[in-house]
């Protein structure tokens, strides 16, 4: 049996009256693509703390409520993408809100008494448009995530199985220590969500430092950096990942190595994926395993190629790595402070 999660749009109904809040909720439950939340509207509603995932707000305004212009303007400033709808009496109440509608602070004004079917149709259409936009955003993000950097684009310009090239690159492995133990203290969904959040944050940093995520490795990432500044960028990125992990109280190890890497497209014409292969990839994985929580272990080639000193305690080491005949010179870096550059 398979289960699927149907994406839904978060709609918050604000109404100071229990009865009409309930009625509105009853009607809006017909919009299957909306996840409706309700809240008693008072001016204690904090516009900066909107419930997560809310992208549409429907306010039923009463004449005895204070004019909500300031509240609505704040809400729109705080969340410019929010679709803001207000139900209001004709006359003075409506007139007071019309300027906000004309300036785009309110997206739709509905005059009481409302036609509930028309309201449902309108909200359904808006929610549908939002779902399409969300889908496009995800697609866009996915494309960006896998967008190759620098000369790696050559590989992607010819996306055929077996197409491969050698590049000088710095390879990074990250690994969240003991992450599998979390699953004993939380639900599988929460575990996955937390893991995804942490790896997503790492991926954004990698992208920021001009690296490319090749793949996730369960509770870590494999990424590559290329170009003449690659070692420096990879080290800086590792430092940022460790600082971020420290702030989140998450134990992370990072391994870096540098050298010739074989990059290519693996798979069949129906299912392709980009991958990197070579001794340096293997070495980076081993160095990552050798790193303790909060540490970066980098090969000497990476440390030598980085032009700036990092704000870190750096300890040279010679370690024996399984699969390598000779000992490997490396540095163990314990991040101590914010980067200065």
């Amino acid at each position, binding site marked *: 049996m398979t289960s699927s999660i149907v994406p839904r749009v978060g709609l918050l109904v604000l109404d100071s009256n229990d009865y009409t809040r309930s009625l509105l909720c*009853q009607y809006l439950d017909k919009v299957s693509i909306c996840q409706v939340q309700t809240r008693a509207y008072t001016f204690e509603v904090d516009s900066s703390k909107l419930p997560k995932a809310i992208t549409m707000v429907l306010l039923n305004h009463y*004449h005895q409520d204070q004019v909500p212009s300031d509240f609505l303007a704040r809400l729109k400033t705080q969340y410019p993408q929010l679709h803001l709808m207000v139900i209001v009496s*004709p*006359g003075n109440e409506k007139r007071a809100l019309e300027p906000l509608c004309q300036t785009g602070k309110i997206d739709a004004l509905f*005059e*009481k*008494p*409302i*036609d*509930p079917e028309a309201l449902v149709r309108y909200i359904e259409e808006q929610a549908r448009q939002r779902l399409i936009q969300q889908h496009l955003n995800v697609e866009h993000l996915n494309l960006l995530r896998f967008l190759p950097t620098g000369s790696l684009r050559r590989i992607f310009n010819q996306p055929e199985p077996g197409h491969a090239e050698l590049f000088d690159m710095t390879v990074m492995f990250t690994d969240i220590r003991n992450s599998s133990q979390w699953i004993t203290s939380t639900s599988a969904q929460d575990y996955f969500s937390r893991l995804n959040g942490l790896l997503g944050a790492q991926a954004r940093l990698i992208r920021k430092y001009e690296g490319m995520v090749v793949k996730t490795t369960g509770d870590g990432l494999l990424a590559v950096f290329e170009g003449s500044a690659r070692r420096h960028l990879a080290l800086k990125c590792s430092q940022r990942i460790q600082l971020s992990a420290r702030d989140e109280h998450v134990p992370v190890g990072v391994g870096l190595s540098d050298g010739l890497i074989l990059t290519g497209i693996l798979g069949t014409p129906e299912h392709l994926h980009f991958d990197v292969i070579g001794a340096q990839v293997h070495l980076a994985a081993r160095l990552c395993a050798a790193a303790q929580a909060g540490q970066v272990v980098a090969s000497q080639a990476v440390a030598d190629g980085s032009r700036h000193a990092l704000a870190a305690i750096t300890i040279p080491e010679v370690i024996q790595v399984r699969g390598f005949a000779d000992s490997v010179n490396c540095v163990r870096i314990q991040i101590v402070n914010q980067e200065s550059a």
Partner: protein
Amino acid sequence: MKTVFSDRQLSQIIDQSLIYQCACPAQVAKQLIGLRDLYSYQQNCLNQTDTDVAVHKTIAADAERAQAVLEECLQAVLELEKWDMQTLQMPASLQKPPRIL
């Protein structure tokens, strides 16, 4: 313009009739607001010719007469439906049973 119901009282009636199907008094109240807007517009409209003056006066006078008729109608409807005439609260028997949230 002489009025029986204030603007706020009309808003109070309309506010309680959120949903279209149970909002007959609100429909009358809404028309009253429209008539008041019409009257106010005529009062402030530019008079450049004698005809303009006559037109605006005619419309304003008829809006006022219509206002009086509809206010009487609203009063009667609210009494028929047994609204609380002091607070202008809709009787609970007219409200659709709400779902418990």
